[in-house]
């Protein structure tokens, strides 16, 4: 007979209890008052969004849990989560929701709130900086490829200033400035 290891510590439960003193009851209103949040409270936790999500299996918080966390007021956990930034924005969750909760759009709103507090992953901030500095995400490097195909050498019709001047006065400009 093999000896079973002596167990110490707290019993294994599905999730840790929620510390209710840390909940922010206003968080759900912040989200539901945004243009995509009207149907937020219609969520009945059926988990269809999670079933539709191609990457939920590797997340600590799955889509239906994130929506529940918003409703409960777990502001810090949601806005500091890696999950909102790893969302593929494939809209499978939103498309399947039987309650018309705009799940993907709500995650976009969460990312905006996180950004407002200064939490943006380094490489996403770098893309914002590229937009402010270069006015585009991709530049033509091999212009001979374009000329071989009888296309004009530069990106056609692109106004670099068009996006630069706008983003300098919106949140992107502030984030890029703060990051320098």
């Amino acid at each position: 007979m093999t000896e079973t290891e002596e167990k110490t510590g707290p019993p294994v439960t599905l999730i840790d209890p929620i510390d209710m003193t840390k909940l922010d009851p206003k968080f759900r209103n912040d989200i539901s008052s945004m243009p995509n949040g009207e149907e937020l409270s219609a969520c009945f936790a059926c988990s269809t969004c999670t079933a539709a999500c191609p990457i939920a299996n590797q997340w600590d918080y799955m889509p239906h849990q994130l929506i529940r966390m918003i409703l409960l007021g777990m502001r810090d956990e949601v806005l500091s989560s890696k999950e909102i930034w790893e969302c593929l924005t494939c809209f499978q969750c939103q498309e399947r929701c039987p309650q018309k909760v705009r799940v993907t759009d709500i995650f976009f709103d969460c990312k905006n709130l996180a950004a407002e507090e200064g939490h943006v992953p380094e490489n996403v901030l770098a893309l914002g900086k590229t937009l402010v500095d270069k006015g585009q995400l991709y530049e033509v490097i091999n212009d001979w490829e374009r000329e071989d195909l009888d296309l004009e050498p530069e990106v056609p019709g692109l106004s670099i200033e068009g996006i630069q001047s706008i983003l300098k006065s919106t949140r992107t400009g502030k984030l890029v400035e703060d990051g320098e």
Partner: protein
Amino acid sequence: MPVYSLYMGCSVPANYPNYEAAMFKVAEALGMNLNYLEDVACCGSPNLRSIDTFGWLLVNARTIAIAEKSGHDIVTPCNGCFGSLKDVLHHLTHHKDDLKKINVELKKMGLEFKGSINVRHIIEAMYTDIGIEEIKKRVTKPLDGVGIAIHYGCHLLRPLDVTEFRPEILQEMVDATGATVIDYPLWKQCCGATVLPVNEQLAIRLARDKLKSMKDAGAVFITVVCPACGNQLDLQQLGLKDSYGEVYDLPVLLYPQILALAMGMNEEEIGLSMNRVPADPILDHLSG
């Protein structure tokens, strides 16, 4: 002849001039008049929406407002640009408060968003305005028997209330070339391109799962209508040899390249040598 305002974005001209060239060749043959929009800005991609929704709304509202002056619908070959522009059009049409704020800013630039034109993917414009029967008439070298897996791309299809693009559109367009559309289980799944900046390993796994699903179902090559999806499925195949020890050899063609070949155009005209995975299977078929 239908006239359109063509929004190129930055990714197609910079990374896929072969897509741009093939689109023009096909559009010309179909009698579509594509005019580059001038003085328009990069759409910013979903990454801009993530950190700065207001900036993203304003940049894309500006593009739509510029196009409204000519009165022609915007068409674009990029799912990312399509997703951004179409989503902003939908948002501002449905949220009057945001529209007011955006128009205050646009007025300073001498512009106004009215919502008087539509934003469309170039493939949908070909399908709706030219029609399958007209397209079929121009197919001189049908691709009979070649199995093609379609990767639609998330921002082309979803959310449907925003994109208004049914998958049958692209399916019928591929059918029109005489090729056989291969059904595969992961046809709706994301290619992984959007998650590249924050989790590269995850992005690679998603591309790999997709390619495997296509190959297992018997696809000979893949068609896409987006530079980001094209990049993921084409370029990542080279890396998968090292990371997963798997070789897929699935050429990835932009849809207008396939239609151009079926119309009898040659491979140089559509820049087929720029596609990373060599397109030999389809060329062998056409010459055989």
